[in-house]
């Protein structure tokens, strides 16, 4: 909740509510795009509604039009036909600069301006919007804190940062003017797996706290499953293959393409989507004392793995302070997939 308070102060210029701007709903209606000199569509007749505050992942093999779709939302690429609306307003209803200043944009490695300091980079859009020097400065401090960067980094140049730090600065910069919508184009691609996972978790935390609408492009289906409230799987030529929650996609791939694209071990991956603290646990019995323990923050997949390791068909779920919350049994996991 602290982040919300932080946002409230930052957004005073936009006369929005104290919580910062909520997410925006995005509607793509029959959107098509063909690049000059090609004889097939990059995106063809794509219709998609992304609910306000949702983190929607566009995923698919290269050439599926996911980046094109993302870039049509802030008009970096024009559409040939169809309509894109943000909160019911056509993206063509405002000037292109005004539209873009209201949409956060994050790319691989942050896309930072090498000649500007961290503070200079983060303050870019507020400066364009004419905020005063002191407003920009305090906003920069708030954002550094929000994305988990030390304030002493403010005067560093991008070349002096690690990959993960650059990405955090890129995220802070995108959030600077408190836009209701963030567009992220394969943001974590260049990072090593450990940093990448850490930043994915951080983004999920920020998304929970800020309730922004996020459109996230990746080619990595595991990242899509981890990050998305909803996933739009696109296939060659910008055709929507399936648009659903990660769980439904894993449970019921709409067609062979989705099934192949999503890959093996779908049941186990569905289990990974659920945390023990989110499911209904069985009441602890007298025998619970002798069962192996597992933390409530673990996923059902981890629980099953532990059951196999310990040759026990049930585990005691314990809370943060070691208190017993209940039991999880192998049968629960199977029923859950039903």
């Amino acid at each position: 909740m602290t982040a919300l308070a932080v946002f409230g102060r930052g957004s005073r210029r936009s006369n929005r509510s104290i919580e910062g701007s909520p997410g925006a709903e995005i509607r793509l209606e029959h959107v098509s795009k063909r690049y000059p000199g090609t004889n097939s569509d990059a995106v063809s007749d794509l219709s998609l509604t992304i609910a306000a505050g949702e983190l929607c992942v566009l995923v698919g093999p290269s050439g599926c039009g996911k980046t094109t779709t993302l870039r049509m939302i802030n008009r970096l690429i024009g559409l040939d036909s169809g309509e894109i609306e943000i909160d019911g307003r056509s993206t063509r209803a405002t000037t292109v600069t005004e539209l873009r200043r209201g949409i956060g944009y994050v790319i691989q490695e942050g896309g930072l301006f090498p000649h500007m300091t961290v503070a200079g980079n983060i303050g870019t859009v507020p400066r364009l919007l004419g905020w005063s020097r002191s407003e920009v400065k305090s906003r920069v401090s708030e954002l550094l804190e929000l994305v988990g960067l030390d304030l002493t980094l403010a005067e560093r140049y991008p070349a002096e940062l690690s990959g993960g730090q650059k990405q955090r600065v890129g995220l802070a910069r995108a959030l600077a003017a408190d836009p209701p919508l963030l567009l992220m184009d394969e943001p974590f691609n260049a990072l090593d797996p450990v940093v990448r996972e850490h930043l994915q978790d951080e983004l999920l935390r920020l998304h929970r706290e800020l309730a922004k609408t996020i459109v996230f492009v990746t080619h990595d289906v595991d990242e899509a499953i981890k990050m998305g409230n909803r996933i739009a799987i696109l296939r060659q030529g910008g055709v929507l293959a399936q648009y659903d929650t990660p769980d439904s996609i894993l449970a019921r791939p709409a067609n062979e393409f989705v099934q192949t694209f999503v890959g093996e071990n779908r049941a186990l991956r569905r289990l990974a989507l659920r945390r023990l603290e989110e499911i209904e646990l069985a009441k602890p019995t007298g025998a619970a004392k002798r069962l192996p323990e597992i933390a409530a923050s673990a996923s059902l997949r981890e629980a099953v793995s532990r059951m196999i390791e310990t040759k026990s068909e049930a585990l005691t779920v314990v809370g943060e302070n070691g208190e017993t919350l209940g039991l999880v049994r192998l049968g629960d996991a199977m029923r859950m997939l039903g």
Partner: protein
Amino acid sequence: MIVAAGAPAGPIVPNFGSGNRCVVENHTFCWSWVNAHWGDTLQPALSQHVELSAIAIGIGFVIAFTTGLLTYRRRWMSRPLEGFSALLYTIPSLALFQILVPFTGITTTTVEVALVAYTLVMLFPNIVAGLNSVPADALDVARAMGFTRRQTLLSVELPLALPTIVAGLRVAVVSTVSLATIAAFLLPKGLGYPIFLALKEPSPFRTEIYAAGALTVALALVADLLLVALRRFLVPWARRGAV
């Protein structure tokens, strides 16, 4: 040792003015000559030289910069212009004077036109290369964040092009300072003039040549150092390297 005017006896000795033994005996280099002629020869020549070079670089930069800005996004335009500036550079300076004199006469203008023409080959391609070296993702992000074209140019492209532009400027400055000595073939101006005069004299006295030459080199070095300092001031981000 002054030879009295109209002295009837003895050989006629050319009057080199007053001089100590160093000058009279044609030593390799005489500080006394430098001291004696700083005010009437070297200092004015140095000032004229600075002026000739500064005007040439100033005008050359304005031309190269404007043309660079207009053409850097269009390779089909900038490439031929780069070729043209290289072609200009291949014309020997004395020949260029010959070509220009019928139009501009034996004037400073003639010299400046030639010097400006020679700066272009160092300035124009660097300005174009600098502007084109701006990372594509920086430009992409600038667009995506709602920069106008003008804002992109002023706050992204030009600052990022600056190191390359300054690099071109350094070469242009050093080369123009050196080249400006040829002005003396046309006009009694610049540090080339004392050299030019001394070369015409049959006398083996060479201090003038050495002094004027050394001043030319010193001027080029000082100008270059100033540009290095300017670069450090304007491009702080390139100084602090990657960790």
